């Protein structure tokens, strides 16, 4: 436990001294925030509130880039070896990376909420308990995914390629960029297989629809289960030595960690609860309403969105 604490402190110190960290963990998420809130939502508080979920999801998911790159650098430079010859364990190393990353993500999320409130006048930030729980499981699970990527790749180049392969579908098909209800039907049925979709819809539910935790249990439990699985796989595959290479087939472990979402995706495609929630939220955007944000998940049928300039009727 003491090793975990001192390693966490070290990781935070190192991150704060790293300019790249500031760019990717502070400047970049805030840039996305202003892009979504100022340009996509045109500053309309209700639409800003709708986009807060995706913005925070992107911020939270970003943890997996930084962590995979950091762990691979540490291994390639022989830094991990130095720790290996001390009493530090693989679990100390991995858990402290994740926890440090989590602590470093919170301030940016807080700033985003503050800006939403002060600059864009979003009066209702939704259910803050749900938000906190989802930010926590979200950061921890995507950080663990980053550690799995670091463990199944041998060089930084491989890590970056695999990161891109994972990242692109996650951000384009999960509702993190385009609202999920706006995607074609086929894309929607693919989306429910992706962990990111549960994070985005969960955060959106928490912030826009003010869903309490019990209404977001599917998302929270799925991400929590995934965290345990990815962390376990990361710990099993962890390597201290730069020259201990891993076979190419080990990359399949990344897919193995997606198993809970495979099952969930099949189930969701039958029941469609998550998609229904997302669609309801999307439709409610142009429902005339008071400054109050919608609290209901019962969809009002038949309205096509007009509040977004680039929206085209798809369904």
């Amino acid at each position, binding site marked *: 436990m003491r090793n975990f604490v001192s390693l966490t402190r070290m990781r935070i*110190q190192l991150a704060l001294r790293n300019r790249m960290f500031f760019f990717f963990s502070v400047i970049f998420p805030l840039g996305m925030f202003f892009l979504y809130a100022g340009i996509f939502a045109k500053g309309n508080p209700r639409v800003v509130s709708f986009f807060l979920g995706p913005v925070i999801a992107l911020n939270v998911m970003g943890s997996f880039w930084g962590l995979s790159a950091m762990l691979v650098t540490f291994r390639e430079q022989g830094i991990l070896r130095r720790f*290996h010859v001390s*009493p530090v364990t693989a679990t100390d190393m991995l858990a402290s990376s994740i926890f440090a990353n989590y602590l470093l993500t919170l301030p940016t999320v807080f700033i985003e909420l503050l800006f939403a409130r002060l600059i864009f006048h979003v009066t209702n930030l939704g259910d803050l308990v749900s938000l906190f729980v989802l930010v926590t499981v979200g950061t921890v699970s995507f950080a663990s995914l980053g550690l799995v990527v670091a463990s199944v790749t041998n060089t930084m180049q491989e890590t970056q390629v695999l990161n891109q392969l994972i990242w692109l579908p996650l951000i384009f098909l999960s509702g993190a960029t385009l609202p999920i209800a706006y995607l074609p039907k086929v894309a929607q049925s693919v989306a429910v297989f992706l962990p990111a979709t549960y994070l985005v819809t969960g955060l959106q539910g928490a912030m826009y629809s003010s869903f309490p935790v019990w209404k977001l249990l599917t998302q929270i439990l799925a991400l929590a289960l995934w965290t345990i699985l990815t962390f376990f796989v990361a710990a099993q595959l962890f390597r201290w030595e*730069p020259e201990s290479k891993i076979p190419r087939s080990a990359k399949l472990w990344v897919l193995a960690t997606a198993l809970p979402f495979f099952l969930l995706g099949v189930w969701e495609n039958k029941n469609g609860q998550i998609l229904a929630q997302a669609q309801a939220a999307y439709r409610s955007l142009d429902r005339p309403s008071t400054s109050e944000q919608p609290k209901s998940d019962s969809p009002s049928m038949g309205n096509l969105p007009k509040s977004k300039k680039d929206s085209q009727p798809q369904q």
Partner: protein
Amino acid sequence: MPDAVLQVDNLVKHYGDVQAVRGVSFSVNEGEVFGLLGPNGAGKTTTVEILEGLRNPDGGYVRVCGFDPQVSARELKHEIGASLQSTSLPDKLRVMEALRLFAGFYKRHRDPEELLKRFGLEEKRNTYYSKLSGGQKQRLALAMALVNNPRVLFFDEPTAGLDPQVRREIYDIIEELRREKKTILMTTHYIEEAERLCDRVAIVDHGKVIVCGSPRELKQRSGGNTRIEVKLAKPATNGTLKNLEGVTDAREVDGTYVLHTQRPPQAIVSLVKHLEAEGNELISLEIATPSLEDVFIEMTGRRLRD
């Protein structure tokens, strides 16, 4: 050997088809500085890393402070200190932070301030690791190896890649530890280093210990002979140099003839006479006092370096 801190018996390790270690045996007693001397790729580092618990052996018996590194790696790591080869610390970690961080990992540890002073790093306490010179990095590595006041120290090529002046600094540090009766296992491919620092040396080649003893014993074993190295205009007839008066042994190593003798003047006179008679010419001649290099040449027919 009840007081042996390190025991290695018939240690075997291969990487795929490559046999890195093929039956290494030695033991190191409390308070002894023991050196593994051999060329690069001889299996020294692999041997040390197995003792440190960083790698698993494929066969043989290993005990470090009574622990089997494969079974009790965690307990073992509280007892050992190590400076590794090809290692590093995070660029933006400061010297003092590194010492404090590692001190915190151990059940018992020394005062990082005291280590900082002792290793001449006081002025560098707030310097980032990436800003340190090679010598400073190595001094920090040695300080960190001592941070838990270990029962046994492992120094893997402690002076590799350092310039001569810095190397001497490191020698001073190791000599001081030797005076304090620390148990040290070090590897090196520098003969002077092994001769100067080690109480006992095992010469390692191709994954095997070829000979083991104190530097003095080893040199005596090779006859305590002076080495004469000559280059000739024409190849010498096979075996003739060996039969010259005063020469005890002669062999060809990489185009140079290496003669061993206990009476250098006589050997040189008879060599010159012999060459005249043969119509051969002397291109160069060097005389070296006995060293572990001679032992290595004698045992392997090759030079230690290159």
